[in-house]
């Protein structure tokens, strides 16, 4: 068994175990942590498949940004996990049935001839996955790529429209521009006045 295989099995085991733990663990924060571990292991596997760009971006986007916000929300909310677990046994048979159906479909598709290909030869070490991806994205797939950008734009606009509220007019707020521009003469008035005698002396 080579070094690579050992690493693969290490990450694959970690991936499966953490994925299972996401569902089974009781504490939601711990579940989120296991999800991070799962992302991490899968990104390692991607990197082993020579998809280093995707692997790193998975960590960058999902672990570095999405999961931070996830944790944020979970910590703010006091989730009652017992309530969520109610009726778990009742729904279990249906859930299992769906899982079996989906698994069966995936197996059926995997058995199709399209995937019956020889294992591709490893690419040379200086092959840049990022460059290859960029080239396809901006030529062959430029249309869906741009539409995806539009979808994200709509998401931003919609989120702002639905969530942003103007504050009441008489709210006090700071205007940093004015704060920076302020001069000592605006705040301090130096008055010339004659000396006065202390009363009683």
């Amino acid at each position: 068994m080579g070094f690579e295989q050992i690493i693969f099995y290490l990450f694959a085991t970690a991936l499966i175990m953490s994925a299972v733990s996401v569902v089974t663990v009781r504490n939601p924060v711990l579940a989120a942590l296991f999800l991070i571990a799962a992302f991490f292991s899968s990104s390692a596997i991607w990197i082993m498949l020579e998809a280093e760009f995707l692997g790193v971006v998975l960590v960058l986007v999902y672990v570095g940004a999405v999961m931070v916000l996830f944790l944020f929300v979970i910590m703010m909310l006091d989730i009652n996990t017992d309530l969520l677990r109610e009726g778990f046994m009742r729904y279990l048979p249906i859930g299992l049935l769906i899982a079996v159906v989906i698994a069966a479909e995936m197996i059926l598709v995997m058995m199709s001839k399209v995937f019956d290909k020889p294992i591709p030869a490893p690419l040379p070490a200086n092959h840049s996955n990022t460059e290859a991806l960029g080239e396809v994205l901006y030529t062959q797939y430029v249309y869906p790529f741009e539409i995806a950008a539009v979808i994200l734009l709509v998401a931003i606009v919609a989120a702002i429209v639905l969530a942003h509220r103007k504050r009441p007019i008489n709210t006090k707020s700071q205007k940093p521009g004015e704060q920076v521009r302020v001069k000592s003469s605006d705040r301090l008035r130096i008055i010339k006045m004659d000396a006065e005698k202390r009363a009683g002396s």
Partner: protein
Amino acid sequence: MSFSLATPEIFLLSATCFILLLDVFLKDKFRSIGYWASLLALGVTLVLTYQSWTEAKALAFNGMFVHDTLSVVLKMAVLSIVTAIFVYSKPYLIDRKIFKGEFYSISLFATLGMMVMISANTLLMLYMGLELLSLSMYALVAFNRDNGRCTEAAMKYFVLGAIASGMLLYGMSLLYGLSGSIELSSIAEYVANQKIMSSVALLFALTFIIVGLGFKFGVAPFHMWVPDVYQGAPTPVTMMLASAPKIAVFAMTMRLLVGGMEFGSEGWQQMLIPLIVMSMVIGNIAAIAQTNLKRMLAYSTISHMGFVLLGFVSASEGGYSAAMYYAITYAITALGGFAILIALSHEDGDAEELDDLRGLSRRHPWYAFMMMLFLFSMAGVPPLVGFFAKLYILQAVVSAGFVWLAVIAVLMSVVGAFYYLRAIKLMYFDKPIDERSISMSISFNALLSVNGLLVVALGLTPSLMALCLIAIKQSI
């Protein structure tokens, strides 16, 4: 590269981004500049689309984009309908204090999504267009965000819509896994070499795709969201939901089932038939029980979408073009119906109960007449357009040998006529509860009159049907 084929889309996208930016710098007083700019953008896009009229099929963006007669006709229909929606909805938005530039920019993005769907030549583009459309629609449904019912409707729509997208995507990925291509023509080749009824994987993929399409069409048994969303959404948004997207979903079905899986028609015919029967039965019978006008129209939409799918069942050019004709004319009719609802609503509440229609003929005889036209058309009374639409569909179905389906469709239309006629009776033979006079702007009235005229004229002249037939023939 043939970017120029997508000129209308590119122009619309640039114009929408410009309007989005423009609106940020507009003061509340000049808000209507954004409205006029949106109309202008749609108008120019319409002209550009018309100019790109073609008799030949052409591909662009490495086969991602298809340009044919079908796409031109459907895009023009969608663009005109969205323009009409903008004109109709202005007074409503001002009354509800949601006259914001974002309404227009998000609607324009939705329009772009529909255009992408109509011109899609790959599974990827179908999905992207659908997502762009759906995401914009979720936001629009929740647009009146301080209204609890709006938010609830948006939530339901979003959750069910997301599930539907997931189903569709799963089906598409199965299809991709089987055929090894996202391009519809290659998928068609793959399907042609397969015996659909004995290929389990292909049937699975088809099932998921049909379920996803069913959700988006809003046909039974995937119709749960339709009444709630129609009722909860602001009336202009309901109008939007009921009209233009139906045309886009028709295009999607056309591309996916006919363009991609025509040789699997044996499979999807059998899957569509139960959906059609259920939608017609549930839609028409449940509509009778409604007292809320918007809910009633929602159930009537369900049954009409059953009719559109019925056109596909015949799996013939005549059937597809009849379905296309039905989708377009239904969108136009629904547009008018909801416009009347906008005219009837006032600042302190929407007119959405059946009772609000009482005595409309005395309050505003012209609106009452128009509403009668729209309702008769939906019921399928000759010589209005709805009758011809149903007729073409039934012709195609009977010639394909599904006589029993045609019988059910006719029976259910008769049941449906009951609640349309009830609404007309309320307008003409009952005393009004609300005596307030109704007055709308000239542009609103003019557009409504044109809309009514179309409902009469489109049926009497066969030109639209001929156009549909040409478009379908050329695209297959």
